[in-house]
Structures are given as C-alpha cells and as structure tokens.
C-alpha cells in the first residue's frame, strides 16, 4: 500500500494489479510455500496411518478366516465369535444409554436451560471429552462396580462405556439444536407450536442427520476404547448370560493378547485389531454418506 502511494507517475496495469510491497511479497511467497507444504504435511500425517493399517492387515489376514470370526466355542481360546457378539451387546447397551442421556441433556441445554446453566453443561461436556478414558474407567469402577455393587459385569462395563460416549452425543445434539436458525424457531412458535412440538416436528428432522452422525462417531470411538471396559468387567469365554455376567470385548482381547510371544495369541490380537479397524472405518464411511445427503437436503435453509 505505502509503496503504491509513492509510486512512479507512469503506472502500468502491472503496477496497479500487483502490490509489490515487502509484506505482500512475503505473503505471496508464503502462499507459494504453503501450496506445496500442505500436501507434504498431509503425507507426513497419512503415511504412518497407512503404515499402521498395512501392518495390522498383514499380521491379521494370513490367519483370519470366517471360521475364526464365527467360532463361539468357549473351549477354543483362539476364536473371535464370543468377543464379537459380546462387543455388539455392549455397544447396543452403551449406545442406548449414551443416546438417552446425550439427547436429553443436549436438547435441554439448547432449548430450555438458562444461558448460565447451559454454559456449565457445555463446559462439563468439553471437560469430559478431554478426560482420558482411564479416568472414566476408574470412575465406573468406583461408582458402579463398587458403589452400586454391580461387580465386574456386563452392565458395569457397558454403562461405563456409555458415560464415555455420552459427552460426544450431548455435544452434537446441543450443537444441532442450537444451530437451527432462530427465525425457524420463531416461525414455529409464532405459528402456535408448543415448545415440545417445535422440538419434535420442526427441529428434529433438521437436527437428526447431524445427531445420527454424532452417534455413529461416538460408537466408532467407543468401540475402540479399552479402559472403560477392562477396569469394570472381567474377561469371559462366554457371551454374557445376565446383566451381571462378566463380558469380553474386542479391544480387551487385543489388550490381553498383544504382549504374547509370536503365536496364536498374538495373531488373535491382530485379528481383533483388524476387525475393530474395519468397523471404525465402516462407521466413518456411513457418517460421510449421511453428511453428504444431509447437506443436499438442507440447501437453502441456512442462507
């Protein structure tokens, strides 16, 4: 700018269009550097991930078979049937509890609580998201295993995992409801909708895809966690028969077996890791698909 004002009298198009001050030149240079630096950084980030995926796949696939995945024989320690079914049960319970708590809290925070109370809720959720899962695991141990006397059990493990997942669902629900345009809210209430009618009939269809996304992400994060389960439940060779039975879990299987010397146990750890990896990737793809659809449907709403 400064150099332009003291510029020579005969200005060409180039003088007018290109600001040649030192700062601008520096900025342009930076742009150029950033232009190739970003792909490099991307590679730096993606290569270890791909390497990890390749490593797990190469260790797991040679021994992985349909039989291993579906074998539920309790006398066969090198099968994944029981952990897989148990993991599905645990995730169903944990997701149901987390969705109930997260939806309720999120809607209440976005729609009903005072600004101050909502602020506290959001801060707590952010804090919980940042809390290491071991801490949540110990909380579950003291509150559920000991406190409520549930013992090392399916219900203690799955509920602790629910506590771990809840803040993610809470946050996405709160955000989905809070980001519905104010005019839409006022139009609904101005047409004589009761608050619950607004929440269910107008806001829910807009917010639901976003919330569903959050739920899938929370499931993906939850299924990859170990501490909340291994601190609140013990290994079992059976699919849980009651709420208070011990339960196995895919990541617990990894945790138990990966320090073994090369052999069937170590292979089992890699097989379990591979299954978890596939599930997490699949969930993320589902999230992508929902997001894309959702954006199309709401085009024009947030103009």
């Amino acid at each position: 700018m400064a150099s332009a004002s003291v510029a020579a009298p005969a200005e060409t198009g180039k003088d007018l269009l290109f600001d040649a001050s030192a700062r601008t030149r520096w900025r342009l240079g930076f742009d150029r550097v950033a232009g190739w630096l970003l792909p490099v950084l991307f590679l730096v980030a993606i290569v270890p991930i791909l390497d990890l995926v390749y490593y797990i796949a190469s260790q797991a696939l040679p021994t992985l078979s349909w039989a291993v995945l579906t074998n539920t024989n309790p006398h066969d320690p090198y099968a994944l049937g029981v952990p897989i079914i148990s993991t599905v049960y645990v995730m169903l319970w944990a997701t149901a509890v987390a969705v109930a708590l997260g939806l309720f809290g999120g809607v209440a925070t976005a729609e009903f609580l005072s600004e101050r109370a909502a602020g506290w809720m959001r801060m707590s959720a952010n804090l919980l998201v940042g809390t290491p899962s071991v801490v949540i695991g110990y909380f579950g141990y003291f509150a559920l295993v000991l406190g409520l006397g549930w013992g090392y059990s399916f219900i203690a493990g799955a509920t602790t995992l629910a506590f771990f997942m809840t803040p993610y669902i809470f946050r996405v629900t709160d955000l989905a409801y809070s980001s519905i345009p104010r005019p839409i809210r006022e139009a609904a209430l101005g047409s004589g909708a009761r608050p619950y009618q607004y929440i269910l009939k107008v806001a829910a269809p807009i917010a639901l895809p976003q919330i569903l996304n959050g739920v899938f992400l929370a499931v993906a994060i939850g299924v990859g966690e170990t501490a909340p389960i291994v601190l609140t439940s013990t290994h079992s060779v059976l699919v849980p028969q009651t709420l208070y039975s011990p339960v196995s879990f895919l990541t617990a299987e990894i945790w138990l077996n990966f320090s073994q010397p090369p052999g069937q146990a170590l292979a089992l750890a890699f097989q379990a890791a591979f299954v978890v990896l596939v599930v997490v990737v699949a969930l993320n793809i589902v999230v992508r698909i929902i997001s894309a659809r959702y954006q199309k449907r709401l085009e024009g709403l947030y103009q």
Partner: protein
Amino acid sequence: MNALTSSGNGGPVLSAQHLTIQSKQKKILDDLSLDFPAASLTAVVGPSGCGKTTFIRSLNRMVELTPGLSIRGSVIYLGQDIYDPSVNPVMVRRRIGMVFQRPTVFPTTVFENAAFGLRLVHEDIETIEKSVEEALQRSGLWEEVKDDLDRPALSLSGGQQQRLCIARALAIKPRVLLLDEPTSALDPAATQRVEATMQRLKEDFVLVLVTHNVGQAARVSDKVAFLHSGHLIEVGPTADILERPREALTQQFITGRFQ
C-alpha cells in the same frame, strides 16, 4: 376497557394499552397505546431502531422469546388481556399470527408447510386439505403450486416462500396477522404480489404491517402509526398522516430526511 366495549361491533379487535418495554440498558417502547379495528390494515412506520419490531412482537407475546426484556401494560384481544397470567401464549399465537422479514419456510414440502399449524391441533386430513387450499388461495400462491404441492418448499422463489409463510399463518384461521417488513427481502415484482395479497386479506383480518417504506404504507394501509425512539408520535388515517402530518418528526420522516 371492558369486554363489552372492545368485543362489541366497531370496537377494536386488538388494542395495545400503555405498553412499556425495557431492556437492561433502556426503554425500547414508552407507554404506547394503539387500537387495531376489525377489517383494517394499520401500518407501523418509523426510522430504524425506533422499536417497530419490538412493538409488533409484543402483540402476540413473541417478544417474550427474547430474554432480558421487561414488559408492562396490556394488550387486549377481544376483551381479554393476552398478558394475563392465566393466558397461554401458545393460544395467543394461534389467534394472532405472524410473518417475518425473511421467509421462514421449514425444510419440507409446500403442503406440509401450509399444514403445519393444523397438524399441531390434530385436524383430520380432509379439514387440513381444505384449509390448506383455502389458505393458499388467500395468500395468492395456489395457482403457482397447486399442481405440485409435494415439492420442497425451499425450491420456491423468495416471494413465493413469503406467500407460503402467509398461507401457513392463515391456515389456522387467526383473527389478526402481524407482518414485520414482509417485503424487505423481496424484489419489486414479488413485493407487488405480497402487497396485493395484503390488500385482499384486510377485508377479513386485522392486519398490522411494519414497514420502513412510506410508499408501501401509502399503497396498502388504512391507518398509519408513526413511531420514533419508542414513542408513538402520531396515528391517523393514512392520507392524513402522509399528506398532512401534524408533527415535525413525522414530516421529516415521510419526506425522507432521516432513515
């Protein structure tokens, strides 16, 4: 004012009485009283920030959705103070509808938008279909959408969306319709159609129109109220106010000397 005078023939359908609205910082409306008789369109005009939106939102208790405002005075609808603690604001808003500055259609079909209020009160489907058609006729949108009521409402033009919002408000058969600068986001052609709609509607409804456009007030209103920094400066028949204003402030406003 008692029930006899206000709900009898000729009395105002809606009447704001000594309305004072305050935020923490200042008085937004100061002791404002104004009557809205049956089958009339009253234009509320005034410079930006004078309190028009706050005023019109106080007429169906929408103003309560903004936290931090204190409201004194009363708004009498057919003899009943809508701010009486026994009155449910949801019921108030079903009798006194509202249309906003920007079209606020919901991301669903044209039909479901128009049927929104009826679904809330669980009407049967024949009644809903009949009322939706009637409301779309009244809002002047029927001819344009009748062949495809299931298209997404967001695919309509801005002007069509605004008339759909009018239809949505009309479908539950309110007595009063509040319009807060309903054409300020529309182009001239769409504005003209909305104005034509308002002119038809005022035969059967009490219309309150907030506008910063003196020309629009002249074209559609029977009565003009001029607001300035929270005070009602003057009110009277449209021609009187726009051609022979008594107050200097009004004069300045209609000659465009301040915005």
